[in-house]
């Protein structure tokens, strides 16, 4: 499994060295709609999905435990 995902992380790591955006250029990136996680008001939607769907994780939500789901 590690072999499966290692190349993706390696590529991502090298891509990270290509661009440097300065702090003063981050005004658009700091917009609340640009946040790289689910929004607080969507939390209960993610919990509903975790009850009704087999797949969980990799979305900032719960990955198991704490309820009878999954």
């Amino acid at each position, binding site marked *: 499994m590690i072999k499966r995902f290692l190349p993706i*992380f390696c590529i991502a790591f090298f891509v990270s060295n290509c661009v440097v955006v300065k702090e003063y250029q981050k005004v658009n990136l700091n917009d609340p709609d640009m946040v790289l*996680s689910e929004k607080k*008001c969507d939390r209960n939607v993610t919990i509903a999905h975790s009850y009704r769907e*087999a797949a969980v994780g990799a979305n900032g939500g719960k*990955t198991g435990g704490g*309820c009878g789901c999954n």
Partner: protein
Amino acid sequence: MKLVCKIISIIFVLNWALTYVQAQETPQVYKKRVLETSEVDFLTSYYTQDGENAAVSGGIGTEELTDVTGTVVISIPLNDDDVLTIDAGVSAYTSASSSNVNPFDGNAPANAFIASSGASQSDTWVNFTGSYSHSSEDRNNILSAKVSVSSEYDYFSLGFGGSYSKLFNEKNTELSINANVYIDSWNAIYPIELRPFGTNGTGSFRPSEITGNTNYNPTFSEFDSEGRNSYSLGLGFSQILHKNVQGLLSLDVVRQQGLLSTPFQRVYFSDVEDSFVEDFHLADDIERLPNSRFKVALGGRLNWYLNEIITLRTYYRFYFDDWGINSHTASIEIPVKLTDRFTVYPSYRFYNQSAADYFAPYEVHLSTSEFYTSDYDLSEYTANQFGLGATYTDIFTKLHVWEFGLKSIDLKFYNYNRNTAFSSLIITAGFKFVMD
């Protein structure tokens, strides 16, 4: 010589004094607080679902359920670097499906498609999570720890977790790792008709009322252990790709051990004769699933600030586990800023999954199998979800409640449909306050 010594002494004293004064006059480097002021979020949701494949009645029957949730999240800056967050929530539901753990309420002939008024028709789930985070002086290292407790009538959970994030490349790149452990326990509740055949049971259930196979004598054993432990490890990598584009890759690996079956979910075998009381099919057994499960989820987000009006938020996840389930999730949300205060959020989400190795519909399983379930949440299906939301933001927080100013209001609506008979609706609302 004495004069030289005096001069040297004076120079030392002056030098020390000058250094001291300079040190005092050195301007303090401005350090932005991680969280400027206390924040309070009130979150609430109303959820309703319906379907015709209830797991409680072995893959047939009503899945009608209604749930109302209220949560408060309080974030308190303890100093420039540390934040304490308290998260407490209550969820109350009524479920036609789980009411049929005991469908014989005497009001009407028992039927899988009719809700019972039994004790299991409703429950309340309460949750408390406390977390603490510390950021380094340069804000490039963030450590956090959390503890959580949740409880409902037949389930209790205790959780611990921690995470570490490292930012570098002028905060263009972030690597993070998190780990969580949940120690859970069931208070197992079994279908009413199977209880007499378990430990200390009488060995019969309403024998004079049974139709069909009148010799109802299921081979039923209660679970020896009611504990469930979950261990998760997550890795995250986020990267700014452009002054308007940033992305995230995340990997979650989860190991679960213990009682992974739901004790009140019935199973009917094709090689066992059917027995009925009233219009209700008596269970042949409850679902039996392996006592371990290994899950892997790989997800990616890409957000693109197109212009001052439109932003694109995209997400994709691939999931697989050792129960034979593969799944794809993809979603897109397009925030559109109508004014500087109002934003609307149309969204679409696609989801599909393959069936678990142990799933089969109503009365298809064989009694000779080791593992079986008729829970359609583990079946093959495709789901589509459409959503629409709106946010009102007031950066000046003019509206006040006590010492807190209202910063934003979120309202969202989602409609979820499977390609089976299942559908659901959820309405969520969030109110964000900041302390003056």
